[in-house]
């Protein structure tokens, strides 16, 4: 008897498929979504000029709003943009409510249509790089974020412990992973 094909792991799904799974109340899909975009949301919040504590409130509120809006997200392919727009508006809202006006706050933080195109492009491109690195999988997906994304800038000893590779291997692995990343980036260029 033929076995039913198993469903792919949420980690292997693109955003539209992931959102569809979340609509089925798939807990793992929601966890994957949060994990995929947690740095984008948190960094976007901090970029608005709010402090860490307020950014934490914003972070929480954005995920609540996403879950509440899941049925409405028209273009799940543009989820990063949805998250950026929401984060900026919520940051403005919470900072205003807390009587801590955001320095240089502009209407564009409330009105998504006024979001600066260059900043949006930059954030989405950075997210795209992260997606490519995650898609490399294996050692590269563990090593490159530690080398290039981690704001704490861990030393090689810490990277070795976290990524599970010998300190002496980090240099050669870094070169090999970057080569694979370059190939992916060149493939995807418009």
């Amino acid at each position, binding site marked *: 008897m033929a076995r039913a094909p198993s469903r792919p792991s949420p980690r292997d799904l693109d955003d539209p498929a992931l959102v569809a799974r979340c609509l089925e109340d798939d807990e793992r899909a929601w966890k994957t979504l949060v994990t995929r975009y947690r740095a984008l949301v948190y960094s976007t919040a901090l970029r608005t000029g709010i402090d860490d504590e307020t950014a934490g409130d914003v972070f929480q509120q954005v995920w609540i709003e996403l879950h509440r809006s899941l049925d409405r997200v028209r273009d799940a392919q543009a989820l990063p943009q949805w998250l950026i727009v929401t984060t900026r508006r919520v940051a403005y809202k919470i900072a205003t409510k807390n009587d801590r006006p955001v320095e240089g706050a502009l209407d564009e933080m409330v009105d998504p249509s006024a979001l600066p195109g260059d900043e949006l492009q930059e954030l989405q491109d950075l997210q795209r790089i992260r997606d490519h690195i995650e898609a490399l999988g294996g050692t590269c997906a563990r090593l490159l974020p530690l080398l290039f994304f981690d*704001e704490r800038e861990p030393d090689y000893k810490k990277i070795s412990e976290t990524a599970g590779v010998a300190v002496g291997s980090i240099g050669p692995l870094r070169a090999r992973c970057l080569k694979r990343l370059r190939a992916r980036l060149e493939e995807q260029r418009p």
Partner: protein
Amino acid sequence: MSARRRSAQEWLDLLAQGGARWKEPPEDLVSRALGARSEKRMPRAKRRRTVHWDAADVRSPGGPSVADDAKIVAGSCPGGEVSVLVHPPLQNATWSFEARIWFAEPDGTARAIIGLVHDDHVLQRHEVADGEMLRFEEIVPDGWSLEIHLPDGDTVVLDDPFHAE
């Protein structure tokens, strides 16, 4: 920063320079975000009825005091009667809303869902009982809609009366 698309080499250079370092949220924040899936979703409207607003005109002695710039809607449909008052922002793009719904067939447990929607964002979602007064404020761009999902499946949609297309 420029909106120009970078080449693969430029991206690798940016990575090497540390230009892609984002601050990761603390783990406790991530755990709380995972719990956001308990937030109820706003359903899509099944049967939509669009209702139009009037300028506020509530002047009966002892009646509610309505600012000149507010707008009000009061109407009925098979599922019930709705009364909504909206005040445009005085500052910070903060709108204020007051809504009360009377169900055609109140049964004590029925609830209406009221959602403030902008584009594909549901900014607020509330559940109210028959005749219950709901008041809330929200920072929202122009062009929002208020969706009222009545217990019988009807959805009354009230579009931002100050920026109607």
